[in-house]
């Protein structure tokens, strides 16, 4: 009898979701320990075991699989606390990392500084070597330049090295020669070699990704070693899998080799969860709406899957590894409201968790969205988390009066309502901008809501977007941990093969795909996945001659085996037309990359069906300013525990639970689905 546990380490809380083999489940929440996240996890597991009427050893003995979303790599980049890294690159190009292809993100901001490079210039050292554009070795590695660099690295305490040579994506000979030298010269250094990590054309993308990998490698290695040994000591004999930015999980051993693939580990869990909740309700297209204290994360689900992008900028650092397509904006419960030039602004600045909203009474002196929600009556004044966090309505009212109401000559309640309206439109705009950018129409999407503040703000946002289905998981607070449990094993491979489609050497393409598939099979086999649970997705990155962006075209293994290029060509034209509104039937098509995703299915899990509990009656009522109304009115409050499957409630009403409260505005109704989740629609 083996259990599975999903563990998601967030900024404030570490969430646990334990699934038993009969699909029953338990959840648990503990504070994150920032120094070593493993400590918090072990403490959490210990406390969790108590609730399960056993001890840590007893619990871990029953757990066969731990799936883990971690921010260890994320935080090391955000705080600049990664490994002391050295870069070896082709002579003449050591500044490409810092130049970032010349992009300045804010054109009008004179004082906006460039991000500090992860490796300072004196540790970015030239190697005399050169490959031509076609991969031919023009100059072999000059050992003296590598020796000299390693001497400096040793003297400077470098523990991680990135090796990235120009045009090495198709021929790793020089990089391998260099790596062997570094291996022998720099004992125990963590080394990343660009053509092994990302054999893809595009020097800056590959360089930045390779550097980030070495920068975070020792950090993730240390963390996972600490966690593994603690788990082992306490009786864990199962498998530890780590969530990747792509939305798939991999073994801890693989994760340590490609830490750059885990910088988006956190939001990825949310995207996978969104994918499953949307699917259960028959939606192929959805956006997640995860509104926490400081930020709102929005991820896209299309064709029933969390959409991924192949290139993303993480904290202004380029990572060219698959990442779920998620945007984050500064909008959350802690977003600050202020009046400037006679206009009301809300966010992106935030009161964060310290000092937090004024109503928390921890020193917050400025009005936030949470203060507005409280004054409008959306939040129970008795306090959050069943009264564990008491709330000060008078403080909320006072700061709204001082910083908004008095400046605009309106009442505190009007000020609160204005704050609520502004943040709603800001958030709706963020969702809209992401979807438009990708050519999607929001009206075809469902909104999957998570985070503490999400369920109080979701409906006005949906209304602004023309969205007519809002799905709120019963326990929205363990949303991301659930996503980790749902995730499959996934390995992404890419190999550049630059050719026009007309001159394509099919045998070479087949050989590339065979090689990628063999590596995928080996990786999955090492993780104990039987061939029956393995599947492979093939695609080609293609573009018209002289374009600079590529389109990823899914292909089948049969098409490759049969050499069915006509069909692939047609598909590219069609996808180009769908994405960009035109195609050029006469133009030459270029192939850039071959891609393969190897997927290993993990045992499926979905929440058990809920029972019916009959018609609920309200547990009370409260005076509330509903969205769109300027008078306070009494509305019914329901206890979430009393809502069984199939219950329907008409707005206006509030549903209050331990961690999640849902606002049903007038004109909307709520239904409890088979699994106890809330689904809201407008009254038609």
């Amino acid at each position, binding site marked *: 009898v083996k259990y599975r546990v999903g563990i998601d380490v967030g900024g404030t809380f570490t969430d646990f979701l334990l699934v038993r083999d009969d699909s029953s489940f338990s959840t648990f929440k503990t504070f994150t320990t920032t120094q070593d996240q493993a400590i918090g996890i072990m403490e959490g597991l210990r406390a969790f075991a108590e609730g399960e009427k056993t001890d840590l050893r007893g619990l871990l003995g029953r757990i066969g699989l731990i799936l883990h979303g971690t921010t260890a790599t994320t935080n090391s980049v955000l705080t600049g606390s990664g490994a002391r890294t050295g870069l070896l690159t082709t002579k*003449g*190009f050591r*500044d*490409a990392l*810092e*130049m970032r*292809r*010349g*992009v*300045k993100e804010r*054109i*009008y*901001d*004179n*004082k*906006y500084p*460039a991000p500090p490079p992860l490796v*300072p*210039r004196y540790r970015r050292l030239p190697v005399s070597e050169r490959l*031509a*554009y076609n991969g031919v070795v023009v100059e072999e590695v000059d050992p003296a330049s590598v020796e000299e660099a390693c001497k400096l690295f040793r003297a400077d305490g470098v523990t991680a090295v990135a090796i990235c040579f*120009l*045009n090495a*994506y198709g021929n790793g000979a020089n990089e391998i020669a260099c790596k062997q030298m570094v291996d022998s010269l720099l004992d125990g250094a963590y080394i990343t070699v660009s053509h092994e990590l990302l054999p893809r*054309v*595009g*020097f*800056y*993308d590959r360089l930045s990704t390779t550097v980030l990998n070495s920068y975070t490698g020792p950090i993730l290695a240390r963390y996972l070693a600490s966690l593994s040994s603690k788990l082992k000591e306490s009786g864990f004999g199962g498998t530890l899998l780590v969530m990747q930015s792509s939305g798939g999980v991999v073994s801890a051993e693989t994760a340590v080799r490609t830490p750059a693939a885990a910088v988006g580990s956190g939001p990825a869990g949310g995207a996978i969860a969104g994918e499953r909740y949307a699917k259960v309700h028959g939606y192929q297209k959805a956006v997640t709406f995860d509104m926490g204290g400081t930020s709102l994360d929005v991820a896209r689900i299309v064709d029933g899957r969390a959409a991924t992008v192949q290139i993303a900028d993480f904290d202004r650092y380029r990572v060219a590894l698959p990442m779920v397509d998620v945007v984050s904006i500064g909008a959350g419960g802690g977003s600050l409201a202020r009046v400037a*030039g*006679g*206009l*009301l*602004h809300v966010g992106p600045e935030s009161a964060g968790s310290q000092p937090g909203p004024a109503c928390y009474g921890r020193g917050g002196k400025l009005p936030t969205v949470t203060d507005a929600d409280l004054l409008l009556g959306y939040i129970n004044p008795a306090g959050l988390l069943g009264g564990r966090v008491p709330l000060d309505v008078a403080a909320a009212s006072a700061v709204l009066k001082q910083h908004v109401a008095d400046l*605009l000559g*309106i009442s505190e309640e*009007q*000020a609160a*309502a204005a*704050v609520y*309206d*502004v943040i*709603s*439109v*800001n958030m709706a*705009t963020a969702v*809209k*901008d992401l979807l438009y950018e990708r*050519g999607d129409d929001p009206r075809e999407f469902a909104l999957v809501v998570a985070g503490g503040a999400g369920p109080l703000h979701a409906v*006005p946002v949906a*209304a602004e977007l023309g969205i007519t289905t809002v799905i709120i998981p019963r326990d929205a607070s363990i949303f991301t941990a659930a996503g980790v449990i749902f995730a499959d094993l996934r390995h992404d491979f890419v190999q550049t093969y630059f050719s026009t489609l007309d001159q394509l050497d099919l045998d070479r393409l087949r050989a590339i795909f065979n090689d990628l598939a063999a590596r995928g099979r080996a990786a999955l086999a090492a993780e104990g996945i039987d061939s029956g649970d393995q599947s492979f997705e093939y695609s080609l990155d293609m573009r018209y001659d*002289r*374009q*600079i*962006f590529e389109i990823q075209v899914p292909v089948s293994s049969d098409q490759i085996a049969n050499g069915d290029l006509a069909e692939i060509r047609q598909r590219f034209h069609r996808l180009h037309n769908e994405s*960009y*509104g*035109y195609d050029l039937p006469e133009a030459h098509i270029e192939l850039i990359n071959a891609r393969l995703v190897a997927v290993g299915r993990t045992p499926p899990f979905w929440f058990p069906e809920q029972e019916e509990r009959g018609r609920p009656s309200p547990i009370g009522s409260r005076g509330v300013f509903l*969205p*769109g109304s300027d008078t306070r009115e009494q509305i019914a409050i329901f206890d979430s525990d009393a809502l069984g499957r199939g219950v329907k409630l008409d707005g206006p009403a509030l549903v209050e639970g331990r961690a999640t409260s849902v606002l049903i505005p007038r004109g909307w109704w709520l239904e409890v689905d088979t699994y106890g989740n809330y689904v809201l629609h407008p009254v038609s």
Partner: protein
Amino acid sequence: VEKRVSPLAARVAIFRTRLKSFAREMVVGIQRTARSPLKNQAYDFGVVIMDPQGGMMEADEFRALFPFAIHPGCRNVVATFGEEIYPGDVFMHNDVFGGNLQPNDAGVYVPIFVGDELVAWTGAKGHMADLGGPVPSSCNPTATDYFQESLRIPAVKVYERGKLRRDVWNLIFSNVRLPEIDGPDMMTMIGACRLGERRIGELAKSMGVASFRQLVAALYDSTETMMRAEIARIPDGSYLGESHFHFDGIREGKQTIRLRLTVSGDEMDLDYTGTSPQSQSYCNAPYGSATAGTMTFLSMLVDPLLPHNEGMFRPLRLTMPEGSLMNPRPPAATYYGNFMSAVNAEAIMQAFSQAVPERVTAGWTRPMSLQVIAWDPRRERWYADIDFIALKGGSGATDGSDGWNNGPIFGVSTLTNDYEFFELQDPHTLLLHEFKRDSSGSGKWRGGNGAITRWRFDGSSATLVLQGEPEGGFGLFGGLPGTENVFTLHFPDGSSYRPKSKEVIRLPIPAGTIVERHSGGGGGFGNPLERPASKVAEDLRNGLISPEKAQNDYGVVADPGTLAVDAEGTSRLRARRGARSPAKEKA
């Protein structure tokens, strides 16, 4: 959310967010559907929403200059057509003597009606692949009047009441070289404007025309309030800023852009009287380009969150004297005008530096751009490319921040080609692209470093067109200037050639020629002796400055071998030189 009569401050904020989102949607539509790489890759276009009079209401601002350069053309359309503007009309325009910024940037305008009331306009403008004239691409550095540049399109109606006017359309597209690219691109911009028309029309209709107008007025008023508050922070006074360039493509000689800035209370007067008369070459900034440049750089000197609309202009008075470099009369050639915004920027920074020293930047490297048209023997075809790798330079330092190393130059933030694609696409081999040591202007805050780019030409039959300015960035408040842009061709026979800053290079360029460009450095800000020695040590260690420069400019003594800073020697030297500025000492 609509029903509640929320306080005006919230309604205006929400209104503006919606307008911004409409503009974004229009931009995305153009990016996704345009054919020309100038639009779908280099994103060389802009989108603006305007009021019935052609006043600027909102813009999408991913690229400098365009946001402030679309509404003047709309005013020209309104002035030309007056009462003859109907629902379903579409106007086209590229007239630099009617508000446009560059002859190659053609705009379209769509009026938005609710019933028969004109409530707003949408406009889009982009750099066209070709708009006729004697030279393919319509960029002609030898032009001496606009007839030698491209087709001049005054305000014309291409659709009337929803119906395409074939006569007008065909007249235009019979006179351009790439109608198969430019025609659909124009349609794309019209499509985007019509999308905006639909969105804004729906919004105005749902809230009522009166409310819509009230919100527009309130948006302008609140922006005006913010702008006035920003100006009020600037000390009253009269400040002079001047900048120069020294070669107009035909003649050597100093040309001046002169700005007299007068601040009084919460109003500001920007007067360019005293600027040199218009040139005989293509170095002229038409009114649209000149004002767009001025507004762009002004936006860098006020709160970056200030909305950009008519309200921002109200406390300003802008005088661009007719017949000058900054507002030439017909038949001036004007293609180079947008490049001149970098020169204008310097006059603005010089003037404001006397009033609000903490907000300005020292000088940025001026732009210098190379176009290559040549034969590719690998692929057996002609190709044309712009050398984006070299279109960068050091930016100027500012109080509290060093300049960006080899970053964007004023008003231009193009993406550099990736090295590997550069070698795959064109018969070019990149040899070097690295920061240039000692190129930055020294200062308490130092300017950005320039870079050296060197690549080998492996093709044949090349024509190279160089356009730009040699100057690096000037220093401010004791900061020193950065180094210059230098462009050199090294031929396989060992000889080399240094062209003028604006030149169509007609020499034979054999395969194996090495193209070398040193981009200039940004200017420093403040006395270099006040730069913390630890920061100088960091630049030394990173090889960005030499021990000689550390000593001469910064008074920091370092061991030339180990680069270790001698703390005692440094304080002694700095104490000795403390009273004198390094600039004087140099002289």
